[in-house]
């Protein structure tokens, strides 16, 4: 059920080479969508496996079977709460955070004797979604847990973690798979155009797999279509459509950021990273690379505020207007 991805074998061996030196708090870092959580779960499984001396979870002992069934009593997984549906059937727009209560409940789990062999494993993924109170409440537990308690933190952006949390953990960076390995894996998963989807996601295979089957593919294509043709960009209309799709603002800002990055990158250095399938349009727009750098700044601040309860439609409108402004500015520059 939780076999490693092919590109993780090396990291796995590197981590277990010094198994007796495994710390009580491990921080797995790396870009989103490369299978960090799977890695963490497998490590948890190994720690809970009751067959002595194994380098892999045996899959046969009681510990492994419980783990596989998802109800091992000495295992906790802390993840942000999913968006809940309230009584009107509306999904609440909820910021994905790990609340402080979840961390406080952890205290009992860690400080009481374990059910099986003394090992209690907690996986926190992604660790940066702990809010300030939760992260602070975690500090004391994380620093000096009773014997046998192990924490595995998973972070996409370790820089967003509190420095006090970082300093208590040993970091273990997981590497991005190289293109060939990722491509062949995606092809084996039945993805039609692996190279393209990998590019869309900056090389992270799991994210690419999601990208290939995401429900919002059509919307992104539509948005890019509009962006590629700024002369006929109907800002109000597009913003309205985007709002109706109820997509996460951060996701849309991410698309725009990648679009902006590609234009600038193509214009200044001739490289395309994210959208190679839009090369012609990017090429046409890339003469305006310089003013679009300013737009990138706007996007960065939009990204910062993406989880704030702003009116998404107004956010989209302002971003698209800024895009048009950036393109126009270039028009008055003497050639």
């Amino acid at each position, binding site marked *: 059920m939780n076999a490693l991805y092919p590109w993780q074998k090396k990291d796995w061996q590197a981590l277990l080479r010094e198994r007796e030196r495994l710390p009580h708090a491990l921080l797995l870092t790396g870009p989103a969508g490369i299978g960090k959580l799977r890695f963490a779960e497998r490590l948890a499984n190994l720690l809970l496996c009751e067959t002595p001396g194994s380098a892999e979870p045996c899959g046969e002992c009681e510990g492994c079977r419980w783990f596989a069934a998802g109800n091992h009593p000495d295992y906790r997984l802390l993840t942000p709460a999913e968006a809940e549906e309230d009584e009107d059937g509306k999904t609440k727009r909820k910021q994905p955070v790990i609340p402080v209560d979840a961390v406080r409940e952890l205290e009992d789990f860690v400080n009481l004797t374990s059910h099986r062999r003394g090992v209690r494993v907690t996986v926190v993924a992604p660790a940066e979604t702990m809010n300030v109170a939760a992260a602070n409440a975690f500090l004391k537990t994380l620093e000096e847990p009773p014997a046998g308690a192990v924490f595995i933190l998973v972070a996409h952006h370790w820089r967003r973690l509190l420095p006090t949390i970082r300093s208590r953990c040993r970091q273990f960076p997981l590497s991005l798979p190289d293109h060939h390995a990722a491509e062949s894996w995606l092809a084996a998963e039945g993805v039609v155009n692996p190279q393209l989807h990998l590019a869309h996601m900056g090389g992270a295979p799991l994210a690419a797999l999601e990208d290939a089957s995401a429900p919002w593919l059509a919307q992104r294509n539509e948005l890019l279509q509009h962006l590629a043709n700024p002369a006929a960009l109907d800002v109000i209309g597009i913003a309205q459509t985007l709002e109706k799709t109820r997509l996460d603002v951060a996701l849309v800002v991410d698309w725009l950021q990648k679009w902006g990055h590609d234009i600038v990158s193509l214009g200044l250095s001739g490289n395309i990273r994210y959208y190679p399938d839009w090369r012609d349009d990017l090429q046409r727009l890339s003469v305006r690379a310089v003013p679009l750098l300013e737009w990138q700044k706007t996007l960065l601040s939009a990204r910062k505020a993406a989880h704030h309860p702003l009116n998404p439609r107004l956010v989209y409108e302002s971003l698209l207007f800024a895009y*048009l402004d950036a393109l126009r500015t270039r028009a008055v520059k003497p050639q």
Partner: protein
Amino acid sequence: MAYQVLARKWRPRNFAQLVGQEHVIKALANAFANERLHHAYLLTGTRGVGKTTIARIMAKALNCETGVTAEPCGVCSACTQIDAGRFVDLLEIDAASNTGIDNIREVLDNAQYSPTAGRFKVYIIDEVHMLSKSAFNAMLKTLEEPPGHVKFILATTDPQKVPVTVLSRCLQFSLRNMTPQQVIFHLGRVLDTEQITYEAGALNLLGHAAHGSMRDALSLLDQAIAYGAGKVEEAGVRAMLGAVDQSYLFELLDALVAQNGGQLIAAANAIAGRGLSYEAALQELAHLLHQIAMVQMVPGALADDLPIRDDILRIAQAISPEDAQLYYQIAIHGRNDLALAPDEYAGFTMTLMRMLAFAPVPAGQLPLAQSGTAATAAPASRAPVAQQSPAAVTENSAETPSDAPASTPGLIPVRAAGSNSQNSETYPAEASAEKGPESNTGEGMPWQDESAAAAPPPARPTEFDGDWRGLLAQLRLGAAGMLAQHAELLRHEGDCYYLRVAEEHQAVATRDFQEKLREAISDYFGREQQLKVEIQQQTGQTPAQLAQRERAARQDQAIEAIQQDPFVQTVVRDFGGTVIADSIRPL
């Protein structure tokens, strides 16, 4: 899981083992030796400098069976129990988990009972900055005058969040960051005792990467030992930290000097290919640029034996000092932006491209988007360029021509400081297309305008001359100015003023404001004055209304001036532009 990380294994157990923090230890040791004990201590400092450690050693020093001492014996039952974390009279409270007032009350309720085994009941409240406001307040009384057997030790990384009332009740010690030398020395000692071979250069790298925190250093050391399979070698540590070899940075700088984007990205890819950290790369780049800028300003500032000296000198000659400053700024900002970029690679290359784009372009070709730098140029030289924009935009996007003038940046002229009514005559037409209400902050708040401009007159008249507006301009009224602005002077007889206020502004005619206004006028003339205010349906001649009318007149004038301006007319005629009347503002 018998393994204990180095940071925990090497937690000091007495004052002698502590690294650094001499200023704190000395003060504490003397206090313990002379038994001059405070009842509440606050320890502050960044992560991993020894707050919790010192707190625990203090608990031992207070409760050691050999008496209150600066050197706890470490063998008596109190000391061993504290080390093992099971001493009944040491209560270590995680304030971040017990933030509420109820948690604190429970703790304080128990404070009155005398200790079970030890001499003192010691409360270590860690992460105290997370306590709620009411929890802090609940502590105050007990914290100020606790029973004789209670000692509080508070520890936090963030003393700003602790209320001053708590701060003033505590003896505060702020712990310093470790210097790299201290860290290196300590790591060496740890490795010697652990019997792990190491290279001195590796410790040097770790010492700097720890950024002043001993726990960071020991966590990194753990990582390095695992990475190097039981050895700590310089190459391994460098790879682990993602420390960037300086030759890559010079490749980047060379590409920047050559203005070669392809080469720049190739250099960036080389950094990516080696699995180096982008953040470290940007930091090193900023460091390098700092050295370059220093050489440019103070040629002798560079140490002669620096291995990269020649490279630095080469780059320093190739780029101008302004560019070095600019690159430095961009590198610093780029570090903050990394976390917000789609991924780190994109954030890094974007920063590099920003350097490329804003670099040595001849002054005339500066892209207009850089309004920050453009504002310093003379407005006259820029005006013709900017004025073409309506035409250029209409061909660019036919659908939305109307917002074109509003979207041209760079048109905001350099505005002289001072109130805007005074320089309205100096350049009426040129600045008229200026955009944005934010530049007209004075408008819409007439009372601010005039009261701000008011300067003390050379000689104060003793009699009111009938000029109500002129009088108000001389007064400092504050909020009462609203009443004055909306009041019309009907007549004045001697020292009595009859004012009329419209019904819609009745809210400002409060007794308070009337009193203030009366006092201000009395002060002005130097004797008691009377004020009579009546509320009526309408007024016609209040200062606010007059100002409004004048503004409208000025607006008309400005529109007129724009319409008559020969240059604007040329633009309209030859390029098919339109003047948007709403966007015209008088200065």
